[in-house]
């Protein structure tokens, strides 16, 4: 269908629009899970800190 990679990237003159669409879509679909993962790690970090704090409290009061 495509005679050369150059033709594929040119998209018949519509390169800006086609790749602008697919590009932003890929960006969103990649960044969103990363952001969610960061959120998950943040809460796990907080929970770990709380556990450490409790442990220190327990050891301190012994």
């Amino acid at each position: 269908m495509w005679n050369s990679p150059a033709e594929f990237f040119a998209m018949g003159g519509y390169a800006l629009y086609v790749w602008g669409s697919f590009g932003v879509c890929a960006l969103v679909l990649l960044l969103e899970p990363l952001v969610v993962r960061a959120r998950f790690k943040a809460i796990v970090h907080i929970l770990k800190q709380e556990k450490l704090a409790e442990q220190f409290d327990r050891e301190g009061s012994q």
Partner: protein
Amino acid sequence: MNQENNSAFSNSRLINWFKLSSPSTFYPVAGKLIPVFWVLAAGFGLTGLWISFFVAPVDAVQGQGYRIIFIHVPASWMSMFIYLVMAAWAGLSLIFNTRLSAMMAQALAPVGAWMAFLSLWTGALWGKPMWGTWWVWDARLTSELILLFLYLGFMALQASIDNRRRADKAGAILALVGVVNVPIIYFSVKWWNTLHQGASVSLTKAPAMAQTMLWGMLLMALCFWMYSIAVGLMRVRAIILEREAHTDWVRQLSEVKI
């Protein structure tokens, strides 16, 4: 003996569903399901992209530019579908007073909002070469914009109420009111202006486009669907941890082991 076994089996299945509605049992199940949906998303996505770029022929009128349809239409479908699912979870949380259903609604809202955004973005990029302007006030795009506002309103309302249970219930009411209004809004916007090409994919009449294009769109739609479930489950796990932070089962989790 047989009957006893049967009723025991069905009883345990009944119990299983409601057990799943507790955050502590759902959390590990979700964790195991997430990779499955990522694999499905990747599979559907790769085949969909293959068809979009290497199988579907050039359009007679719109040239190569029409290929945007393979993202635009799936994103639109998903944005509307996710709103329905989100409202359904919100409704369940109101009826059964379950926290997890509300958390699912909360987890799905951003995904749906991004889908609406992608639909608008790709719509603009499709419209510019085809109709000459970045934005056209036609029924579909305008309704999509309003849907984005509905998503943002839902998220804003939940974010601004400190009491989680009140936020859940208020959000649920808003989502249900929204879901009832979406058809009304869509109908009124369509009444107001019909520029967009008529729905070329419908369940009742034959599609007005090549079979390959249809397949491309359906596969990409499935890809977005699997993606939405995967990201939704990821987010709901984070939300569960945030909201159930002071329960015993969270403290015992292996992730939190120091």
